């Protein structure tokens, strides 16, 4: 199925390159061959976590002149928030990897490198 589709596709490409019907549609300066890697997508920038807890903590510090013992409550809430944010981030990345059926660019590149495009008949 892929071979038949491949033959039709090759014929279409040769039609686009030929000079028989006027000017050729394609004038490639490099050979028309697929690369063994996929372009890397920039990961979406999230937003900063635990900003409120941090600002509360810093307000407490400012009030108490940076003495730690008086701000222990804020410090503990900050730590719990950071811990939760870390766990949530790990869960989210795991989940989006397993479900979705798509490969990340890195995974796709690894796979393509293992089964590369054959450029010559060996």
């Amino acid at each position, binding site marked *: 199925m892929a071979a038949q589709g491949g033959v039709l596709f090759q014929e279409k490409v040769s039609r686009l390159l030929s000079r028989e019907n006027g000017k050729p549609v394609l004038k490639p300066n490099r050979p028309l061959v697929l690369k063994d890697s996929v372009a890397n997508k920039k990961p979406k*920038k*999230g*937003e*900063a*976590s*635990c*900003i409120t807890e*941090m*600002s509360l*903590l*810093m307000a407490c*510090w*400012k009030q108490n002149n*940076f003495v*730690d*013992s008086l701000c222990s409550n804020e*410090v503990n809430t*900050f730590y719990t928030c*950071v811990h939760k*944010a*870390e766990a949530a*981030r790990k869960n989210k990345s795991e989940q989006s990897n397993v479900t979705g059926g798509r490969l990340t660019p890195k995974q796709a590149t690894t796979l393509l490198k293992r089964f590369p495009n054959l450029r010559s008949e060996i």
Partner: protein
Amino acid sequence: MAASISGLLKPWTPRVLLVRWSRYNPYYLEPEVRKEAYSRPESELSAEEKEERELKKLRPIKAATNSTTSSVFNDPVLSKFINMMMEHGQKTLAREIMMQTLENIKRKQVEKYHKATEGQKDGIECNPYVIFHQALENCKPVVALASIQKGGKYYQVPIPLTGHRRRFLAMKWMITECRENKHRRTHMYEKLSQELLAAFEKEGNVIKKKHELHKMAEANRAYAHYRWW
């Protein structure tokens, strides 16, 4: 290893056996050294812990390092500190310095204890391990600054730290402080014991460094939104 051509043809055994490698396949699991983890009865374990035990029966386990023991005196924080103090692989020297430090702390505290009045005697902590752990706790920073680029310029942004990073920073500051800011004739254990006791009382240069970092973070709190994680 001598690599002669005739040597390659003979059956070969590695010259160094029974050594923990530094790079293991991620398939290997960490060893559980503490005795208490094995003496717990079946009923006390939760479902996850039972699963972990089942997994440990099947997976290969990394070899334990030479410095870990299953005795009650094994302290991972202390071992990490000794490793960080070690230079040129001289573990015996680093360990000696640490033991002398702890002894020195004990001596000073016991002297203070005997000189103190009856009312003050309860407040004086004599256990050097407790002092060491509390001093490190007091030195750990809560937030640190990271250099983040935004719009062509670099800003110092306050970021939360993981527990490991905080512990590392506290130990690093302690060791660099004791190496650099001392008279050339004071021994390392002497300076370390002074610094640890000062950190226990929340004074001293390391605590000052931590407070300065906190002040810088507080001054830059407007840039906190430049973080994206």
